[in-house]
């Protein structure tokens, strides 16, 4: 290394500091642009839903509403009170809740149990079985529509919330099993050995030892399953109609079947209502997810 000239060193230092600030601002600028790009549709949805139809017809998409009106939200949620032909979201929202809660719970629970058995109670052919689960992740929705419709028919649960719970549970199992299997494989087997010597059996070890430390992966799985099932349109529209439809199907019906004038403000409010639960799941569970990841680990 050549002898350092203090003046030269200072100049180098200053120029590299300037470069750093420049790139830092460039980074912020880019990130800001992306954020605006992603948030713009949501902004349009919200302002449109708060405007009156007259204001919307003036064509100023990005402007703030003159007066904030929640009427369209009310209409989207509970209708106008017509006797017939009035489609509104409330009953279908509860349909979706009745579908998503058991489906998420059952598929997550079974996935955890599968992952536990596949990693901690190894048996002949366990890897083959896991491979088949993995294969299940790659089966496209469309491929199982017909066989599933037939199966639901035979079971007598076609066009019902129960039917949709079964479909989503079965289809989600591949994913939940994979999540839990990959999580449990990193947990030392010695912990299970210790519990076996202590006299705990298969289920006791699962509930007392493993499940209490599974929070991070449970949250990941719940987010994944909840979002997937809540937002699903294909299964919902294929296996249910009328009263038993979930919210996404109802939203579609509502937007497409308006007979007279197209009410963009009500449509936007309805679309937003349909998206709120997933938003809430991300906001609340996301926090626990980060917490779970940073909590004390097993080894020191």
């Amino acid at each position: 290394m050549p002898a350092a000239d203090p003046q030269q060193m200072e100049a180098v230092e200053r120029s590299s500091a300037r470069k750093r600030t420049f790139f830092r601002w460039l980074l912020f600028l880019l990130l800001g642009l992306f954020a605006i790009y992603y948030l713009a549709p949501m902004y349009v949805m919200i302002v449109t839903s708060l405007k009156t139809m007259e204001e919307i017809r003036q064509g100023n998409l990005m402007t703030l509403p003159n007066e904030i009106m929640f009427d369209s939200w009310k209409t989207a949620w509970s209708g106008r009170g017509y006797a017939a032909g009035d489609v509104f979201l409330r009953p279908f929202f509860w349909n979706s809740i009745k579908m998503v809660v058991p489906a998420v719970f059952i598929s997550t629970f079974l996935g955890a149990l599968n992952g536990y058995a596949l990693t901690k109670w190894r048996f002949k052919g366990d890897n083959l079985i896991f491979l088949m689960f993995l294969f299940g992740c790659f089966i496209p929705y469309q491929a199982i529509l017909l066989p599933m419709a037939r199966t639901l028919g035979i079971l007598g649960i076609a066009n019902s919330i129960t039917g949709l719970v079964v479909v989503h549970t079965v289809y989600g199992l591949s994913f939940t099993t994979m999540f839990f299997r990959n999580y449990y494989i990193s947990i030392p087997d010695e912990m299970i050995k210790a519990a076996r010597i202590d006299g705990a059996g298969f289920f006791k070890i699962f509930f007392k030892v493993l499940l209490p430390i599974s929070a991070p992966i449970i949250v990941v799985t719940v987010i994944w399953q909840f979002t997937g099932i809540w937002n699903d349109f294909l299964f919902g529209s294929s296996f249910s109609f009328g009263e038993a439809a979930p919210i996404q199907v109802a939203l579609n019906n509502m937007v497409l079947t308006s007979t007279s004038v197209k009410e963009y403000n009500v449509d936007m409010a309805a679309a937003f209502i349909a998206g709120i639960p997933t938003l809430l799941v991300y906001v609340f569970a996301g926090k626990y997810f980060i917490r779970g990841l940073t909590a004390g680990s097993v080894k020191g």
Partner: protein
Amino acid sequence: MATLKVSNLTKNFGSTLVLKQINLDVSDGEFIVLLGPSGCGKSTLLNIIAGLESVDEGEILIDDYVVNRVEPKDRNIAMVFQSYALYPAMTVRDNVIFGLKQRKVSKEQIEKSLQHFSKMLQIDQLLDRKPAQLSGGQRQRVAMGRALVREPHIFLFDEPLSNLDAKLRVEMRHEINKLHEQLGTTMIYVTHDQVEAMSLATRIAVMNEGIIQQIGTPQKIYDQPNSVFVADFIGSPAINLIQGTVSKDGAALSFIPDQQKDGDKIPLSGYSFETEPGEGQKIIFGFRPEHIRLPDTSLKSQMQVELKPILIELTGYEKEITFEFHGNEITGRLPRHVDAELGKSITFSLDLSEISIFDSASTMRI
């Protein structure tokens, strides 16, 4: 009372044979250390004794009762693991009493055992903490507490000190030693650390490639290793092994190193052979670093050697000096006041009373 007998045990994982015809007899109160390099099958053997792995062939007997098909929890054993294997979601208290609760021991009895053993292991201040809030040493104590409260007939240890730093390791080693003195329970201990093995064991079983190479007291294993593997594995710095041939001069046997320059012969009269070698038989001559001594005429069987240091390392208490010896590098362990200089010959006594001789072909002691 707890004895353990392993007879003709064989175990394979798929097509790999991990344990071959293992026989082991442990009497009550013994401290057996299974010692060997990683992959030698020692942990598998321990897991089989615990009942965590199945047996392919052979029998495991605890107190003369065949336990091949007995569940781990019913074998009257307790085990301490390398990763501690504490239950992260439970407090120290719940970790320790988990086993007793499974056995449906009465509440008063559980509390009594908990108090007794947590005091003994000095974890009574930590009972309400979670494992994540403990240091490595504390976790190891809790893991031992969990094993102790079960009051097992046999303790199994699977490299319990490997995750601790050097200082703590020595401390915990002393405590395990004291514990054994205090309780007198039969203990089986797996390690790859020879210092742990030497200092804890009443008997050591040296394992390699799924076979128990030698089993005996630490002293016996160190002084009379039965094979080149055992000789080389035990002792630090390692034993000096020199290839050569046997020369017979009437009844007197001597050793001629392969690459000797000046017709040196090392007399073997002080060594008691199990089977006397023939003229010209290839053998390996082994002596430990401490057998190179300052000239001492009081030794009952010795030989004068001139050695040139090629490397001198001060270890604090001693000097470890590497010499050139008939084309081999050998190590000597000498007092630190010895006046050694690189390349300058010094006269030493080679103590021949505790040497080991192995057959070159079989690498077994003869």
